[in-house]
């Protein structure tokens, strides 16, 4: 029998190893799997390469993972927000690496990683510093840059609801990178606000087919990152 539901976030992230590449869904806090990230802090894996659009806010979630010195390198499009302090500080001190990728290129590199396409050409970033050192090619008179797929060992993704097959639906703009990251990791770990019975999700409306998902944990009332930041909270709830 197929049953991808696991009992706790701790169990879900237990096998993430030192040096792993881990994709983390979310655009800012929308779609960020904060309970899975906190479980990863508890678990303690080090030297991680994190692929995520941003670098977290305040001292919770992804920012707390970085503050806990578990992250060697960030691959992202926008590593700062008005309330991000942890990453900028470490970056200025040269204590964390950054690979800056245009947002659409980041999305496509993750998608192709999941789709068995190792590389593609794109017009984005041509003639800019972000294309420096990269191979270019002229196709039909226009210049494109060669970009390579990104794959991960693990993806941590937040969604609205899941069933035991791992079929997922998302909520509004919290969808963002989640469906792509599900496809691009060897092991995709999902936190869902609700577990549904098989068949409760309309087969026409499934966003992530279960084949891309390995584990699902139900987190009924996930923390709001911005609320925690506003309250000056720090994970581990210091």
């Amino acid at each position, binding site marked *: *029998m*197929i049953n991808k539901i696991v009992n706790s976030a701790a169990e879900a992230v237990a096998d993430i190893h030192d040096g792993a590449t881990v994709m983390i869904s979310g655009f800012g806090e929308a779609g960020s799997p904060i309970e899975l990230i906190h479980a990863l802090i508890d678990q303690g894996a080090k030297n991680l390469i994190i692929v995520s659009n941003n670098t977290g806010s305040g001292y919770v979630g992804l920012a707390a993972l970085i503050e806990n010195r578990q992250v060697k390198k960030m691959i992202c499009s926008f590593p700062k927000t008005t309330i991000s302090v942890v990453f900028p500080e470490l970056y200025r001190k040269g204590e964390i690496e950054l690979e800056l990728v245009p947002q659409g290129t980041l999305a496509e590199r993750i*998608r192709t990683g*999941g*789709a*068995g*396409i190792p590389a593609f050409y794109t017009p984005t970033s041509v003639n800019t510093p972000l294309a420096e050192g990269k191979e270019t090619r002229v196709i039909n008179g226009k210049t494109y840059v060669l970009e390579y797929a990104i794959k991960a060992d693990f993806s941590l993704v937040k969604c609205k609801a899941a*069933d*035991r*097959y791992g*079929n997922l639906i998302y909520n509004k703009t919290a969808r963002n990178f989640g469906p792509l990251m599900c*496809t691009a990791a060897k092991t995709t770990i999902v936190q869902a606000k609700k577990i549904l019975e*098989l*068949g409760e*999700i309309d*087969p*026409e409306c*499934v966003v992530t*087919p*279960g*084949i*891309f998902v390995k584990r699902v944990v139900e987190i009924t009332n996930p923390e709001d990152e911005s609320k925690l930041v506003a309250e000056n909270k720090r994970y581990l709830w210091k």
Partner: protein
Amino acid sequence: MEIINKSVDWTTSQIAQKVALDIHDGAYVNLGIGMPELVADFIPEDREVIYHTENGLLGMGKIAEKGKEDLELVNAGKKCITAITGACYFHHADSFTMIRGGHIDICVLGALQVSEEGDLANWSTGEPETIPAVGGAMDLVAGVKTIFVITQHCTKAGEPKIVKQCSYPLTGKNVVTRIYTNLAIIDVIEKKLFVKELAPGITFDYLQSKTEAKLNVL
């Protein structure tokens, strides 16, 4: 010996059953058109296997009953089918993300020829008058982790189908994992063929006599 052999060949159903027993609980499986489709009937009841059809459905169920066909719910062979509870629909790019991205565990395909090194030819005889048609075969062998071939050991004319080099156009090179025929189950390991199981009464020598490629004992 010919006589003994004729009496104990595995039937098509028996071959399909052999394949079915090698499909693990929880596997995501794509079954090719024709003989591979039979495999689904023999999956042990305690195993939950999810069938993918490349035209956009994960969770394919049985063939639709007469009178209950939906022309917009078909499999890759364009037969009317059903969908299981927990199924989902998606477009072709997402479907081939599953295939090419290595997400399907097992694909069962028919063969015109399989070579000694695990090359597969199953899409064209290369004859000039035939209409070439490839469908998803090349994507499947390029992307799916485990490729099971299910086939008669020889052609109707008695020619070997397991050959040194495929004479027909290739579907993919070094892609076959295991071959199931009416005479034997043969593994492809590091570009060599190893006999894993013989049908009752079939000897290694007899099998080799029906096989152009060199066979090895595990």
